[in-house]
């Protein structure tokens, strides 16, 4: 069984937002909501500035609080490690939105179910990569199977130092960020 993860090489992100557009089109994300976003941060003082582009999306956590909290089991884990939503079971209690530390979820107002990034489940099924990965101009987003030691994600994680977001929340997330700025000695 594969275990799908995403590795994000922040140093290669140019902030073109093509991933956001591709995701919105592919998944018909309603206006004012996003399944993925790119956070732009500039830190430091003048002449000593650092700019960080941080693409963010659902972390498909191993210990996902949204899955634990869901009263009906609409949010669930699939065997491939992804977290998916069975829309016909969602009662709209909004507990998963409160539970998510990554602000990955939103309510689809038109149909009243909670929604989020699905790693483009419909594309995975036919052997394609998620829309954001396919469109990424700088190959900043890399998607693949962590259980396969030869896959690109496994190799990247072997060769580089990386981190995950909000590790302290105890969710064991599956989006890995390759450290853009190596620690100074």
């Amino acid at each position: 069984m594969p275990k799908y993860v995403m590795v994000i090489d922040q140093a290669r992100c140019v902030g073109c937002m093509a991933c956001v557009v591709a995701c919105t089109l592919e998944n018909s994300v309603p206006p004012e909501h996003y399944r993925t976003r790119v956070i732009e941060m500039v830190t430091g003082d003048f002449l000593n500035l650092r700019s960080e582009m941080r693409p963010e999306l659902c972390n498909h956590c191993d210990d996902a609080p949204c899955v634990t909290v869901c009263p009906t089991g609409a949010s669930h884990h699939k065997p491939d490690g992804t977290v998916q939503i069975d829309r016909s079971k969602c009662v709209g209690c909004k507990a998963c939105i409160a539970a998510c530390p990554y602000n990955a979820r939103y309510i689809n107002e038109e149909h009243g179910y909670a929604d989020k990034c699905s790693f483009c489940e419909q594309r995975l099924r036919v052997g394609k990569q998620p829309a954001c990965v396919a469109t990424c101009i700088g190959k900043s987003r890399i998607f693949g199977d962590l259980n396969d030691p030869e896959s690109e994600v496994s190799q990247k994680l072997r060769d580089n130092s990386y981190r995950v977001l909000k590790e302290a929340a105890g969710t064991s997330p599956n989006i890995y960020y390759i450290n853009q700025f190596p620690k100074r000695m």
Partner: protein
Amino acid sequence: MKILATNFLVLLKEIGRGNRYYFAWVALLALLICAGAAAYMQQLSEGMIVTAIRDQVSWGFYISNFTFLVGVAAAAVLLVVPAYIYNFKPIKEIVLFGELMAIAAITMCIMFVVIDMGRIDRLWHVLPFIGRMNFPSSLLAWDIIVLNGYLFINLTISFYALYKMANSKEYNLNIIKPLIILSIPWAVSIHTVTAFLYNGLSARPFWNASILAPRFLASAFCSGPALMLIVFQIIRKVSKIEIENRAIFKIAELMAYAMGINLFLLAAEFFKEFYSDSVHLAPMEYLYFGLHGKDNLVPWMWSAMAFNITAFFIFLRPQTRENLFTLNIGCVLIIIGIYIEKGMGLVIPGFIPGTLGEIYQYSPTVIEKIITVGVWATGALIYTFLLKLAIPVTTGELRFARKEEPLRAS
């Protein structure tokens, strides 16, 4: 079969009788319920967009009211404990009215949760046996079970006792005593589980503090009895039921301890957050001082604190506690204070600042307010009708017809 129908008519007839104040009260409640129902129809047809709830603040006014009312329902045990365990007679006689209030409060709780759901047509997924609940892992599933269980226990106890009394029989304490004993930990559990619902979310540091469940219980043991004390005084004014001052003052004394504990726990929370001054201080700062100029809740929170402290001293001093005028002032202050503190003051700051650092200042829309008033009116109407039947049954004015005897409802 015939006897059942006649008895049902006896009950209906009793509800249909009363003086003009009674009818004015029922008419007012009916009007508010209609307004609430109309507003809810609009929410159903247009969706949750008519509320101010958004992705940043996903729970709002409905869940705030729910949280407060769970406390009111749980507090019925504050009466049961001294009445049955220590056999304190004056309170024993009024336990029934406390349990009926728990029934009304739980009904309101369930209504608020259901109204908060965006897809009411899929509600069957969370019903036991029919749908498949995500049982041991989801605290929401636990909450559904304990709330309905508590409703069932209170319905059984009070309806069994009333039924026996209406048939002029002594009720068998051996049958209901185990249920009464069970209702004590169960009442603690409904409020604890509701607290854990918030408590378990590591994404929201304001809720993710172990002090939350104890504070829930402490505040519940203030607000619930406060509401009951006022109702008891109304009951003894409009009916032949005699409620001793001794019982009322005893409850007031217990409330003073509960409020003392509540204020102490609040102080502990204050110290921990402000002295350590970590990043998790932000929600608390928003609540009491405002964050980046956003300070919607600040005046509410400070008045809640002033009300609670004033009420604490009123209930602490025997002179003011045993004076019905100051006692009632204290009760009203506690109800308002806890309603703010355990309502919006608990739910909203959990979402502020959001996980991206956004500050969305939630304030309920008119539709939310009308629906909320409608739900409260429904609860009040249920309680009114329950009392309308329970009072004459306990005083012996209302008795069921028997097979041999002709109808004797006067």
